[in-house]
């Protein structure tokens, strides 16, 4: 047996460098002659720029140049990677997204000018000498007001603030409405999915460099997908062909979605380095991160479920306002539509579904994918509404769910919202979670809490997600302007060690540990024989990067396919060395043997023969042992699960303590159980953050109220309870070679409704008839709900 194959839990090898301070992050990169940029950012949300006078700033000590939008006249805007078609068949409204504000400021934090100087201090000093003449305009903040007739427009050249009005599936709308008319019960819920700031521990950084001798540019950046940045920035913004542009994303300290996107600062540093013939560096401060990293969520929704007299779900409809912010970030239009509407069936057999989404421009930071991206918004609506429905009907919320689940023998299951779930067993995860959470013992625990003066509640949620993003031909039909395959080159060295160059990017996921486990298992060698290289377009094949819980399902599958090619070729070499037929060669535990004989040759002898081909079938196969595969999945993967948590509410203050949390997930096959458990812990932690603490808030003038950690509450260790994680319910994915589904986003998707359901259960059990509280469930909001 190989050491650390599939199913083992070796410790994360990358942690040795992270924990000893040897990681190499973008901010650790300092180039000879480097200059520093300080961005002058808007401190008002909406204004006309009458003039910018940079003359005083230009003369300040150390200043190389002060850039304004004039410097970028020959440069494209930041592209949007997804075009959504509205319910009338028309393309979405797509405004220009300039690198530096052109004529108008559209959100607090937008870049108005940029000072490049020899030190950051000199750049900041000079920025204070820039004179701006602005005419302030009313800020567009409230989405529903933004789409009313006569509303102030964020973009004067668009017809309104409505980016698109999307209906899904539009042809089903009449049938859905008819089902509601016939329903014996309808549950309605209006809710807000609160705006979040991703807050990775490492803020964004960009270093641009230019080599005059070969007219090539290099960008070092904090990205989840360096090839995507190279493609978008090279082809659409700066006009640099890919062979003249290298993008490096070295160690990256957390992404959570917000480091997927192509940002103005990246294009700026690359452009300015070429203009000034010197490297240009930008390191975001935490304050800048709050007002320039793409935010997440921010949906206002109304959901309705129709039931027949036997409590079967007969139809579902939703109406959502989705905040786009001031500009379309890279994948923003896809999040409330194809990553949200397609998941509205959840785990249920609801036969008729209609989803309407109005995407709205406002004078706020652009909103885009954040851990889960669209799927948490779908799950939250559905699982909150099902819970409310159970309370209205006086039935057990777990049993109402079970009754309406897609049954284990119904897979593959085509939902009315365009996707086909390949496998799943929702009854199994529900049963497992009910058992692990000791739901049977809840009443005794609630009585014990009450004796201490606390209100105890229990909340359940189920989730389904579409991961392993995504089949290229499908997403192309849906408006994606990119393919979503993944790539791997497997290079076997002469002495048998292996280097994998992957298009996936690891920024916390642990690929350097898990990917070798797969190859170790396939060949039968120790995982320590395999090294993973990622994050540099100069030495990895074109890949689409890491998001949507796709790395193992898509990137791992590419690596699997490349390794299969390696094994096939190695068998040919072994057959030659063993003077046997290729079809008789078996590979096990790193030994090629001739079946039914004791003849064998070791992995290392075969790899050596490939590079020292003295005794080698050169007439039929090439020397060397290196293969590349591109893998494009046939379908999404559909991880699912059941989450249960218990909370205690302090009636006097409204403070909620999360007491325990149980996660029963079906991730299909699991490569490294320890890392999977850690992913669930992290996701649930972020879910607790969203449900209990985090709130990105603007005032009516468009000022960011939660602009620092003084007002934006991140979850701390003491906010997170012990989490029981189980992934023994496994229905392997049917269409990727590893049978894996992905686990990165599940925790953040499934946990918020479980937490909110638990708090409402605590209140309603104890005489407070409260239907809903919007997240975050801060003490103030919970107290107000109990006392209104």
């Amino acid at each position, binding site marked *: 047996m190989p050491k650390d194959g599939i199913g083992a839990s070796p410790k994360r090898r990358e942690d040795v460098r992270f924990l000893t301070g040897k990681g190499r992050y973008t901010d650790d990169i300092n180039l000879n002659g480097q200059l520093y940029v300080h961005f002058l950012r808007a401190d008002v949300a909406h204004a006309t720029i009458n003039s910018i006078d940079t003359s005083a700033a230009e003369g300040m000590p150390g200043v190389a140049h002060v850039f304004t939008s004039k410097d970028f006249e020959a440069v494209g805007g930041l592209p949007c990677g997804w075009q959504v078609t509205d319910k009338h068949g028309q393309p979405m409204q797509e405004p220009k997204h300039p690198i530096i504000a052109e004529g108008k400021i559209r959100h607090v934090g937008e870049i108005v000018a940029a000072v490049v100087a020899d030190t950051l201090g000199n750049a900041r000093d000079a920025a204070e000498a820039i004179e701006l003449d602005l005419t302030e305009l009313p800020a567009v903040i409230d989405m529903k007001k933004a789409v009313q007739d006569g509303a102030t427009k964020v973009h004067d050249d668009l017809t309104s603030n409505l980016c698109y009005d999307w209906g899904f599936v539009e042809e089903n709308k009449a049938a859905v409405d008819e089902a509601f008319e016939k329903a014996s019960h309808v549950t309605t819920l209006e809710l807000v999915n609160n705006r979040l700031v991703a807050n990775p521990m490492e803020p964004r950084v960009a270093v641009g460099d230019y080599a005059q001798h070969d007219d090539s540019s290099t960008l070092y950046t904090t990205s989840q997908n360096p090839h995507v940045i190279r493609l978008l920035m090279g082809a659409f913004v700066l006009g640099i062909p890919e062979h003249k542009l290298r993008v490096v994303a070295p160690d990256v300290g957390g992404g959570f979605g917000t480091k997927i996107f192509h940002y103005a600062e990246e294009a700026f540093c690359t452009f300015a380095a070429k203009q000034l013939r010197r490297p240009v560096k930008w390191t975001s401060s935490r304050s800048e991160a709050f007002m320039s990293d793409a935010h997440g969520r921010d949906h206002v929704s109304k959901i309705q479920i129709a039931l027949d007299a036997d409590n079967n779900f007969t139809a579902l409809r939703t109406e959502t306002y989705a905040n786009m912010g001031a500009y379309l970030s890279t994948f923003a239009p896809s999040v409330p539509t194809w990553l949200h509407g397609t998941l509205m069936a959840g785990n249920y057999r609801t036969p008729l579904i209609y989803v309407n989404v109005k995407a709205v421009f406002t004078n706020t930071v652009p909103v885009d994918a954040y851990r889960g991206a669209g799927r948490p918004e779908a799950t939250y609506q559905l699982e909150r509404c099902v819970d409310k429905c159970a309370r209205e009907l006086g039935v057990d919320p777990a049993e109402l769910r079970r009754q309406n689940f897609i049954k284990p023998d119904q897979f593959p299951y085509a939902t009315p919202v365009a996707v086909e779930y390949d496998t799943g067993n929702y009854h199994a995860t529900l049963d497992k979670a009910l058992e692990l959470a000791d739901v049977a013992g809840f009443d005794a625990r609630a009585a014990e809490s009450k004796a201490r003066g606390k209100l105890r509640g229990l909340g359940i949620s189920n989730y389904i997600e579409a991961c392993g993003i995504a089949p290229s031909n499908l997403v192309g039909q849906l408006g994606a302007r990119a393919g979503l395959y993944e790539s791997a080159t497997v290079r076997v060295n002469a002495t048998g060690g292996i280097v994998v160059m992957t298009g996936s990017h690891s920024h916390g996921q642990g690929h350097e540990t898990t990917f070798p486990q797969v190859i170790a298992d396939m060949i039968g060698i120790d995982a320590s024989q395999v090294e993973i290289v990622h994050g540099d377009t100069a030495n990895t094949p074109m890949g689409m990067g890491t998001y949507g819980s796709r790395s193992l399902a898509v990137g791992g599958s590419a690596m699997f396919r490349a390794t299969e090619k390696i094994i096939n070729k190695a068998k040919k070499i072994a057959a030659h060395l063993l003077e046997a037929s290729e079809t008789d060669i078996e590979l096990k535990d790193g030994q090629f043997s001739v079946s039914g004989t004791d003849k064998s040759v070791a992995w290392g002898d075969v790899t050596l023969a490939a590079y020292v081909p003295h005794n080698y079938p050169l007439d039929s196969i090439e020397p060397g042992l290196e293969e590349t595969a591109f893998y494009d999945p046939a379908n999404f993967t559909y991880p699912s699960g059941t989450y249960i948590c218990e909370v205690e509410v302090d009636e006097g*203050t409204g*403070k909620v303590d999360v007491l325990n949390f149980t996660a029963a997930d079906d991730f299909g096959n699991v490569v490294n159980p320890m890392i999977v458990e850690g992913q669930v812990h992290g996701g649930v932690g972020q879910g607790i953050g969203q449900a209990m603490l985090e709130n990105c*808030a603007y005032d009516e003038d468009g000022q960011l109220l939660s602009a620092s950690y003084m007002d934006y509450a991140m979850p701390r260790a003491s906010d997170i309870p012990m989490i029981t994680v189980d992934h023994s319910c496994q229905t392997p994915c049917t269409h990727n070679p590893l049978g894996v589904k992905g686990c990165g986003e599940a925790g953040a998707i499934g946990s918020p409704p479980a937490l909110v359901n638990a708090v409402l259960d605590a209140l309603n059990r104890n005489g407070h008839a409260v239907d809903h509280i919007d997240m975050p469930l801060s*003490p103030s909001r919970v107290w107000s709900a109990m006392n209104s």
Partner: protein
Amino acid sequence: MYNFEFVKPSSVDEAVAALRDEDAQPLSGGQTLIPTMKQRLNQPSKLVSLTGIADLVGVSSSGGVLSVGGATPHATVAAEAGDYPALAALAGQIGDPAVRNRGTIGGSLANNDPAACYPSAALASGATIVTNAREIAADDYFQGMFTTALDEGEIITGVKFPIPQAANYQKFEQPASRFALTGVFVAKYADGVRVAVTGASNDGVFRWTEAEEALSANFSPNAISGLTVASDDMISDLHGSAAYRANLVKVLTGRAVAACA
């Protein structure tokens, strides 16, 4: 941060002299001043550090009075103010370990942040704020949000706390900053009970005199059950409405009294 001069005198007199320069500011633990300077919101020409003055650091107890040097860090008060346990407990709940090992009592009282913890202890204890020039009763010292009786260049050299028969501080944390969203300090003395509230009012720390009267007559949580707290002057922000803070004042006062038992 803009450039500034930095001096670290070893006596109060030298510090007072150094502070006579225009735009000079005293620097104690720097937990508020340094972040505002980093954001370029504050531009002192000179910082006069008070942490090198040995006389300003330390905790001592004598004759029923606990004395704390103005530049004593919170962590030291938490560890050494055993004669006044409620005060030690309050100090041990401020910020995080890094804050507690840098931030000082004098800095906190001089800044008088409306959500800081120490002002409630000083006011509820009827403490005396000692400066290089005079002694100021706590009742005269706090003059509203970020406003105190200190004159320009005046340095807090120490604080004298009469040690109560019983006392307790109930801090309800603002979820993000973990400053007091509302904090109530109750101190019971032979001549009566004092109740001071931080975090709640637009006027900064204040005494809840109705509760003091009720508790002086009957030191039990029930004594205040019939009282109401007006929300008119309470802070309303992202983290809690005025009505919510008014509720917290009453709930926390009751819990502080209960904890004194």
